[in-house]
């Protein structure tokens, strides 16, 4: 793997060029460009706010911000993996002609999605500020936001690891991307994105030692752990209503996060190893 990394480093300029190309292509043919890609999360959040606040009757304050804080990272992960899945297949004609480290293709897509995600986070902060200016209340920015780079690195490692593995496998079996699509959809509901992790912790169905275990396993899922971590780090602790009771917010569980970070880096190493095992066979695919 060291040799592969050295080779990748030698081709770093190609990687940057491809990242730049991806971003250019994405925003080339539309006037709104970047803004268009924010429409989806914004509409989702708007719908969720209306549904939860006015139909379900959730009284959580500034619920939209809490959804966004978890939904944007999830969206990044989803798009990075799904785009990476196709990255080798669409470039096969090029791969058959010329040599370059194959991992550059999925990595460029994952990185361009990452840059996009960081821009979306900037918009998220602008949103927080706007809400504060319209409804002055508690100052929305937290000192813990300084942890954000750590979360981003862990998140990127996870996306790169899964993206590389999926890209390699999908080149041989195109079913992979559909399977991954279903898993991602399940992950969305198995992670605290549209609800809070406190909803799981304090759920009456999950009490006692068994409930503790389930909660532990639940938060070993990197996507769930990251969703919670983004919320705890970016936003003020928020009391949550669980089954009609108001429960105090749980603190950020750094121990769990450390374990999850290790899992994410293990996924990265594993995904890259799998990719390297398969990459010479891409061009010989039947």
């Amino acid at each position, binding site marked *: 793997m060291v040799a592969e990394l050295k080779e990748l480093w030698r081709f770093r*300029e*190609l990687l940057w*060029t*491809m990242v730049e*190309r991806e971003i*250019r*292509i994405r925003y*080339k*043919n539309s006037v709104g460009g970047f803004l268009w890609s924010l429409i989806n999360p914004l509409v989702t959040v708007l719908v969720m706010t209306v549904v939860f606040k006015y139909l379900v009757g959730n009284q959580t304050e500034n619920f939209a911000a809490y959804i966004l804080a978890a939904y944007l990272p999830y969206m990044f992960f989803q798009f990075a993996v799904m785009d990476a899945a196709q990255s080798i297949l669409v470039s096969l*004609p*090029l*791969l*058959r*002609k*010329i*040599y*370059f480290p194959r991992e550059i293709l999925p990595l460029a897509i994952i990185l361009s999605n990452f840059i996009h995600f960081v821009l979306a986070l900037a918009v998220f902060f602008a949103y927080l500020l706007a809400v504060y200016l319209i409804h002055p209340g508690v100052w929305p920015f937290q000192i813990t936001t300084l942890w954000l780079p750590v979360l981003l690195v862990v998140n990127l490692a996870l996306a790169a690891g899964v993206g590389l593995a999926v890209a390699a496998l999908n080149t*041989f*079996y*195109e*079913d*992979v991307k559909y399977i991954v699509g279903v898993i991602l959809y399940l992950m969305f509901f198995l992670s605290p994105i549209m609800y809070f992790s406190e909803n799981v912790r304090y759920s009456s169905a999950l009490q006692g030692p068994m409930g503790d275990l389930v909660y532990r396993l639940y938060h070993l899922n990197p996507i769930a752990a990251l969703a919670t971590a983004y919320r705890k780090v970016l936003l003020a602790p928020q009391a949550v209503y669980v089954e009609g009771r108001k429960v105090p917010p749980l603190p950020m569980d750094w121990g769990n996060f450390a374990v999850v970070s290790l899992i994410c880096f293990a996924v990265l190493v594993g995904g890259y190893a799998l990719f390297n095992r398969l990459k*010479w066979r891409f*061009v*010989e695919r*039947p």
Partner: protein
Amino acid sequence: MSGSPAIVARDLVKEFVVSHSGANSLKTTILWFRRARVETLRVLDGVSFDIARGTCVAVIGKNGAGKSTLLALLAKVYRPTSGVIRAEGRIAPLLELGAGFHPDLTGLENVFFNGVILGLSRKEISRRIDRIVEFSEIGSSIDAPVRTYSSGMLARLGFAVAVHMDAEILLVDEVLSVGDLQFERKCIRRIEEFRESGGTIFFVSHHLDTVRKVADRCIWLKDGRIEADGDPAEVTALYEDRMGR
């Protein structure tokens, strides 16, 4: 022969796995796992040669004789099943019809992208950009998306990028039919210049006339083995003779 050879091949073997079911989905793999009929096809079967710097080598042979596979092995697209193939210096494959161009990007953006893939840095490309654009005869269309280009323009731009890489080895797979006669002459002139400056050319062709005119050495591949190797006039004559022409 000056110094070490530019290209060395030793007992080069390349096998491909041919699957008759075209196992492309998990379902077929699982369902057909027990009776998967996997055949290996030996495309190159022990090929060895040394090519000196500054030589223009032509590879001839029937379709399926392994010519393109040899070129791809040289370009490091494939890994040999066994044996070695080694090239000294930068290799520039002539991409057919601008493979690797993205339709929505402008000609200029694509030149940068293509150049970086071929192993140049952006700075090096910036230094060459004027010459590349001039050579390609694209003119002001260089700032238009390449989807608006004709196939001739695409080919010219691809060729212009490849020949300005200052590579040591140029790989050509049956191209040079890249536009009008005038441009073809220009390409041939450019290739001559490339050779005079000590570059090695490795090309695959079915045009025996071109081979006789351009090459210094000709390798005839038959069923993955070298059938004949030597003076282009002799090898092509033998080839024509054996093919019954």
